[in-house]
């Protein structure tokens, strides 16, 4: 700071601007340094690593160009993991957003004890995935888990929820719904509360029924927020990990193994760092494409 005055100011305004610039840099320095360390360098070095056959266990690390990416395209393990992730996403996003919207509309009614009811839906959102996994593994336990007791109490056959290949993904989706519904619920509730009551009043006077009021008043009003919630849930679904890794371990028979689990196992169990980096970048690319497409669709809707 003192050097700024020593350079010999010609105008009064100039050194102050310059000093401000330096002070600004001082304030920004800690964050920028950490961001370079935690984000800048890993992004660059990770991309470089993805172009090598680095294996920590074997000590290799030669440049192989795009070989890792080419291999990914034909790797049956990756295809299976991508397929499972896509299946999870296709099931999870609509269910999560629809249930979140329904609950938000319910909570938007005049209710008694609204705070307590809202808390019941949001509290799972605050829990660590490890706790969620343990809680649900116990509830879905084929040996007398509580959900099976409910089923047998109402006369339905008990289910081996998480160990049947066809049902395990359903179990994971169910767990995710319970865990994550607080997010769409809160965001959509905020959007619903922003809709002026006069709009509904006017629609009612015009003779619109419940469905018409939802379709022509509620839906257009919350559309931008709804699209954003869908986008954020899409991104989240592609990164699904804990509830799969800790509940089904990717099983049974690999039917729930997802991309992030494959990345973790490739990089930190098999130590194929180069290949794991390529998986990471491919996942990032997919998420980026989904984001751009979704934003473009939203923009086109809005401009219409």
């Amino acid at each position: 700071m003192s050097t700024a005055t020593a350079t010999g100011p010609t105008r009064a305004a100039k050194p102050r601007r310059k000093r401000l610039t330096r002070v600004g840099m001082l304030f920004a320095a800690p964050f920028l340094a950490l961001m370079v360390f935690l984000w800048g360098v890993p992004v660059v070095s990770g991309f470089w690593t993805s172009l090598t056959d680095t294996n920590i266990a074997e000590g290799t690390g030669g440049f192989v160009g795009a070989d890792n990416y080419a291999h990914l395209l034909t790797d049956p393990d990756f295809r299976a993991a991508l397929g499972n992730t896509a299946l999870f996403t296709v099931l999870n996003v609509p269910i999560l957003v629809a249930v979140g919207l329904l609950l938000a509309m319910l909570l938007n009614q005049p209710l008694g004890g609204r705070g307590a009811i809202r808390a019941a839906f949001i509290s799972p959102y605050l829990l660590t995935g490890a706790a969620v996994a343990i809680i649900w593994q116990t509830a879905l336990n084929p040996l007398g888990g509580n959900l099976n007791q409910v089923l047998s109490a109402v006369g339905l056959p008990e289910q081996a929820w998480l160990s049947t290949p066809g049902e395990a993904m359903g179990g994971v989706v169910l767990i995710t719904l319970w865990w994550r519904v607080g997010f769409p619920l809160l965001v959509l509730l905020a959007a619903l509360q922003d809709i002026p009551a006069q709009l509904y009043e006017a629609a009612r006077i015009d003779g619109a029924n419940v469905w018409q009021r939802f379709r022509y008043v509620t839906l257009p009003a919350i559309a931008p927020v709804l699209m954003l919630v869908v986008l954020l849930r899409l991104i989240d679904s592609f990164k699904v990990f804990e509830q799969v890794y800790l509940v089904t371990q990717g099983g049974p028979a690999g039917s729930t193994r997802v991309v992030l689990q494959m990345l973790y196992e490739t990089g930190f169990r098999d130590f194929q760092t180069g290949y794991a980096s390529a998986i990471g970048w491919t996942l990032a690319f997919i998420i980026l494409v989904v984001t751009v497409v979704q934003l473009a669709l939203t923009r086109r809707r809005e401009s219409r």
Partner: protein
Amino acid sequence: MSTETLAAPQAGAAARGRRSRMTASRRAKYLATAIAAVVAVGWSLPLVWTLIGSFNAERLTSGAGFVPSQLTAENWTKLVQPDGRAVNVFVAFFNSTVVAVCATVLALVVCSMMAYALARLPFRGSALVLSVIVLAMLIPTEVILVPLFQQFAALGLLNTYGALIIPHVVSLFGVVLLRQFIANLPVELTEAARIDGANAWQNYRYIVLPLIRPGLATLGILVFLAAWNDFLWPLIATSTPSMQTLPLALITFRSAYGDNEYGVVMASTILAIAPPLLVFLFAQRFIVAGISNTGLKG
């Protein structure tokens, strides 16, 4: 809205007097409350089961049932004395507390300083920095796990508190959020302080920080929860049991006790989820604001 009309078809509602309309709307309110309450109770059942299970004398889930035949505190005493079968859950609790508290404090300081610079002390390239931050939010952090691990390994930081804390300090969302808060403050406030002789630091510390408290509270809670609940990064960055955070310790407990003493696992789970739920109890307003803000960041 929907239930209101279910209880009172609009054709009849207009014809009826004020009194019947009031009872109709009250009936609609009771109906909506009843539906919401039933769903909400169903939603909390897994948590209630977990709490009950931690006091259940039955050792296996197959005999547990909804209502335990016999209650015991033995599961909780086993947490205190794990008899070498698992990690000490209180060590993990301590680790989680240190990590979450340090990460929260550091993130608030570092992110608010950055936000202040971006909003009020533009420096050469600050506009570019802001766009890089927004762009960086698009890249999922999971993607850089491998190189991040290599970096911490090269610096010998694995199995340290530093490794667990530092990744939570840089919150891109936090900078964007706080910058918005600061930009919305009237310029006259900081200008007046400057004319009174306050330097940039005093302006930041005594004028700006107190005024953006709601933003700080929101960010602080989000960082605390993220650090407390994180699973994948601690799994990668630690290997010694004494450095485990609670989510990792829970899994260790599951493998040590899961098969024949499910009550102990339930007790450790309650211990791990209690702090976030308590934070929620006292700061519901900020958590709600925080989550709603996340949705509107785009």
